[in-house]
């Protein structure tokens, strides 16, 4: 791994415009991806892409947040901040994965759940709460990877998994360093200082056992994708040794430690 960055540098790298896009990740890791839309409750949120695909020779369910590449996509996805309709789509697809015994792979890069008026009225809190509870009855392997920003409850909603991984240049935090600084010191410009206190880097979170693995992030995206795919395949093979009940018990034990 490259020379150790400061927390503020990791925050910057996590948000970098050069960060691999969700679509590149999905296309690079999976074959036969079929995108599935809608929460079956009146909405479809483009900030969450969901679908089925093949990883190696195994069918999997893929759920990913996306910040969008074009201006239109960035506006439609609120730069990757999901609305309740997105979380409900994710829940629907997770339940579908359980039904067909497909492993669940989530890919996360979001500053957090979208703080909009409609999102609030449509039950942002309830939608996230339902996902957190669902991790109790998903008897299939579940691996979550944070590849950029992992913003608070909006990221956790997709990360109550058997394994939680983070890219080398990613963060996972209870709120943004800017928000943290503005609440604590009434001064959002002290975000860099806040980042240092918050323990939001992959190394800090690995030490606290909040995450299980750090994924190296070489500049060459093909190498990155190849390595991540290999790791996912190995871990899925590993987790597939366990029964659904064993997976759930192990998952509960993992989170019970905190």
């Amino acid at each position, binding site marked *: 791994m490259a020379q150790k960055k400061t927390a503020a540098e990791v925050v910057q790298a996590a948000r970098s415009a050069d960060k691999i896009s969700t679509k590149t990740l999905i296309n690079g890791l999976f074959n036969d991806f079929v995108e599935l839309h809608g929460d079956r409750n009146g909405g479809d949120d483009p900030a969450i892409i969901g679908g089925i695909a093949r990883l190696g020779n195994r069918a999997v369910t893929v759920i990913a947040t996306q910040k969008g590449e074009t201006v239109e996509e960035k506006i439609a996805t609120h730069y990757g901040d999901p609305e309740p309709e997105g979380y409900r789509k994710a829940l629907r697809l997770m339940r579908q994965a359980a039904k067909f015994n497909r492993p669940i792979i989530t890919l996360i890069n979001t500053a957090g*759940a*979208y*703080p*909009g*008026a409609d*999102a*609030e*009225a*449509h*039950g*942002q*809190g*309830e939608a*996230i*709460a*339902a996902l*957190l*509870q669902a*991790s*109790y*009855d998903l008897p299939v392997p579940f691996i979550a990877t944070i590849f950029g920003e992992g913003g*608070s*409850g909006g990221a*956790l*909603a997709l990360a*109550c998994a058997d394994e939680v991984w983070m890219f080398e240049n990613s963060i*996972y*935090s*209870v*709120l943004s360093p800017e928000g*943290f600084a503005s*609440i*604590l010191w009434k001064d959002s410009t002290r975000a860099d200082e806040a980042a240092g*206190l*918050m*323990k*939001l880097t992959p190394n800090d*979170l690995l030490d*606290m056992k*909040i995450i299980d693995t750090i994924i190296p992030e070489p500049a060459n995206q093909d190498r990155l994708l190849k390595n991540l795919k290999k790791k996912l395949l190995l871990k899925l093979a590993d987790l597939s040794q366990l029964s659904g009940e064993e997976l759930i018990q192990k*998952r*509960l034990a993992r*989170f*019970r430690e*905190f």
Partner: protein
Amino acid sequence: MNLFKRKPYVETHPHRQPERHFNQKVPDNMFIQCPHCKEGAYYKAFGAFRVCPNCGYGMRLKAQERLDMLTADYTPWDTELQTKDPLNFPGYDQKLAKAQAATGLNDSVWTGEARIAGANVALGIMDPFFIMGSLGTITGEKITRLFERALNKQLPVVIFTASGGARMQEGMPALMQMAKISQAVARHSAAGLFYLTILTDPTTGGVTASFAMQGDIIAAEPHTLVGFAGRRVIEQTIHKKLPEDFQSGENLQKHGFVDSIVPREKLGAFIAQVVRLNQPEEE
């Protein structure tokens, strides 16, 4: 005009104590302004339940005060647990000591077994005066154990929520409590046991996005602030002012997220009623 006539100045003696004792007869806090409707009222008009006589808003309560309003028959649980301060956060130990002294709690929730109007329940009461009722690692541990013990004892769970969200001084371990508690709720629920949440002012952030919204029945006190994102954050995001009552229990009820708005003085009877209706029939 008589230039030398003394003007009728009044002499003042700022350092002398007033001889009349009006101040002692009218102490502070005799008149209370309701934070919701802004009407003032004589403090006694708020009554034993501390409810605004004008609009029905219930003043924020310490956990112990709320407990005393509900029952005298209770056993506290897990009063000794103390946070390990996972971030070694500067100044946090003083903040905690102050909150503990102010509320008499080890962290932001009181938990225990209680008998309310004849119904036995596992009870949790969050304290908005303990670092804004924020969800820390010990808050999470106490609530998780509440559900685990309730499962062992086959008891229903009742939680009064009041929280500013995950406690930022405890960082990611605080966020993880949302997942830990949610799984404990799910286990309790899968055993066919009943969970009632009562949203009280204010219930926001990570608590709204986890156990506050996981009850089989979700009730709220009148004019309770309930939301996920903060009001200012939403207004800055959408560049619009929100209606005054946008994040209220009443508005959430209109959108289908709250079962019932229950006045504070009727909560004890309400709890006993729904607990009994959710218990298996006895032969």
